[in-house]
């Protein structure tokens, strides 16, 4: 499969004197985490299918600085930001799409003040626009009638008020979209944000991801859909902790769309 992926870099485009339509910001999780890499590939397959002229920064990409900033290290964040902005501005980037809500939030909201002004889209918003422009078509396929719930990533939902794009995509799959008791504005965090992903939780009586997984299991979904590589990890771990791997799958929206078409 992998040899079919067409992933040009900005440097490739530059060499040909061309500009891509959009920069795909892969992010650290999407580049290095084994689970998240599958999401990256699923999204690339969709971009290829829709014949989107996109590019990645590849080895020129570096952490946006989000976890450093949320951990309180403003220095490191701004160093990362200024470096990335220099690279992107040199390539005259106008539009960015990313599958990570943390990168999305940082690029969209925290880079402009430092000189990085781009139109930034979450991959669910981007996929939705491809569908509405008719560049990509989705049929229910194997997810038709399945019970799917969407776990709102904090940095996509509450942080940036994107609630509908991922849900619209699920409904395009002709699946049964079911909501957890905490959803949208009151969605419960998976436990990974604010740099928690990289440390053990403080003493308590439960892990946050287990609490959230229990909320999901209450409504008996067949699939928990996510829009964030970190949420994906947390929910997958939660499902494992509850020993429900056989009944419930955790999949990114991009994977759902790609898998529906057997890409």
């Amino acid at each position, binding site marked *: 499969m*992998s040899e079919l*992926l067409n*992933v040009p870099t900005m440097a490739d485009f530059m060499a040909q004197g061309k500009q891509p339509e959009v920069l795909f910001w*892969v992010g*650290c999780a*999407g*580049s*290095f985490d084994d689970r998240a*890499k599958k999401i*990256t590939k699923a999204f690339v397959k969709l971009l290829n299918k829709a014949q989107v002229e996109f590019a*990645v920064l*590849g*080895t020129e990409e*570096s*952490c946006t600085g989000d*976890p*450093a*900033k*949320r*951990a*309180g*290290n*403003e*220095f*490191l964040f*701004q*160093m*990362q930001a200024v*470096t990335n902005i220099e690279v992107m501005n040199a390539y005259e980037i106008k539009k960015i799409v990313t599958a990570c809500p943390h990168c999305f*939030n940082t690029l969209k*909201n925290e880079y402009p*003040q*430092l000189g990085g002004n781009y139109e930034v889209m979450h991959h669910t918003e981007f996929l939705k626009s491809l569908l509405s422009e008719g560049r990509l078509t989705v049929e229910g396929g194997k997810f038709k009638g399945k019970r799917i719930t969407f776990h709102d990533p*904090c940095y996509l939902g*509450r*942080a*940036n008020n994107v609630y509908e794009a991922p849900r619209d995509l699920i409904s395009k799959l002709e699946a049964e979209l079911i909501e957890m008791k905490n959803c949208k*504005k*009151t*969605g*419960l*965090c998976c*436990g*990974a*944000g*604010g*740099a928690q*992903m*990289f*440390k053990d*939780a*403080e*003493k*308590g*009586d*439960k*892990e*946050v991801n287990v*609490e*959230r997984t229990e909320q999901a299991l209450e409504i008996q979904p067949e699939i928990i859909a996510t829009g964030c590589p970190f949420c994906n990890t947390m929910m997958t771990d939660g499902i494992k902790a509850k020993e429900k791997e056989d009944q419930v799958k955790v999949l990114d929206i991009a994977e759902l769309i790609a898998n529906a078409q057997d890409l």
Partner: protein
Amino acid sequence: MNYLPNVLFAIVLIAGIGYFTLNVKKLIRNIKLGNDVDVSDNKSQRWKNMTMIALGQSKMVRRPVAGFLHIIVYVGFVIINIEVLEIIIDGLLGTHRIFSSIGLLYGVLIGSFEILALLVFIAVIIFWIRRNIVKLNRFWKSEMTSWPKNDANYILYFEMVLMTLFLVMNATDVHFQAMNSGNIISQFIAPLFSGFTETALHTIERTAWWFHIIGILVFLNYLYFSKHLHILLAFPNTFYASLKPKGQFNNLEAVTKEVKMMMDPTIDPFAAPAEGTEMPAKFGASDVQDLNWVQLLNAYTCTECGRCTSECPANLTGKKLSPRKIMMDTRDRLEEVGKNIDSNKGTFVDDGKQLLDNYITREEIWACTSCNACVEACPVSINPLSIILDMRRFLVMEQSAAPVELNNMMTNIENNGAPWPYNQMDRLNWKNE
């Protein structure tokens, strides 16, 4: 001698309002201890937010039961206070129900006050039951120690007493009952006093009248010491709240300057700082003076309802962090600093304490997932997360005191541009895997 009640009333009124003004000045002084922050943008959106959220209670009703009861008490409070105007005029001039001459409308007004008074009384009883009998979880969290619990109940008792006095005052007002207009509720209370002489009724009516107005003045002065301050501060607080997307954390300008300098190859790193260069600001916050004034206003506005804490993922899973406690601690420390300034002739003398560690522990600070659930939940647009972030900034940038795992994560970002120890040159390897 006939003017004695008028004079007495004027003295009570001036004393009541005077002491309140004194405390409001102190309140403003304390809030101004915070750093400046620019909130001059987008005035129209700010007015809109204040109108919707504070005046219109739009976020209160997200929890329908509490929201509905709160609206009754809120509307009742605002409208019944029109009556206070009449009381003040009567008290100063020695008149009795000076507005009653407006005729039918007076009956309609007082009638609606009476209905509201009854509704407020009932709502307040339900509030009390929710707190003390049903014991809703959020009212019994660990930060709800004896004072916060008592404070909440005192407010409810105050309101019960004030509403009762208002209705008794009307019920024992022979003249008003005889008018038989507007006594919608009090006519049913009047029979309780049927055996009383006119003099006795008059005495009861006067007593209720006096206690009602004195009660209101005492309540007014109680505000500064109580969580009930939200009835005033909810308005400026919703006005000055951030208009940015919740995920957007501010970029520290002092850091931007230093980063730009570090990245600029033309700058001589060993050059002596130019004349008049300011000392770099303290990064982050360890005490209330390091916060900005909107954050301090937030602290005074908090009414300790606990909606934030009841939505906090850390708190829900038994961690020590409670966003409400962050706000309560900030206010308590700010009050302490204010008192320190008062007793030291206007300057703060180091008392060896600070907000961090003496009030808010590091364990609380590090438990936050920055999910914004608390910010979203607050009915009056308080942002506990911004205080948590500022304290993390202090811990990391001034003290290098992040948890070890976070230091590893940050070292990785510094060295190889990712929070994990992977080589930046391997970033595109996934393509061929």
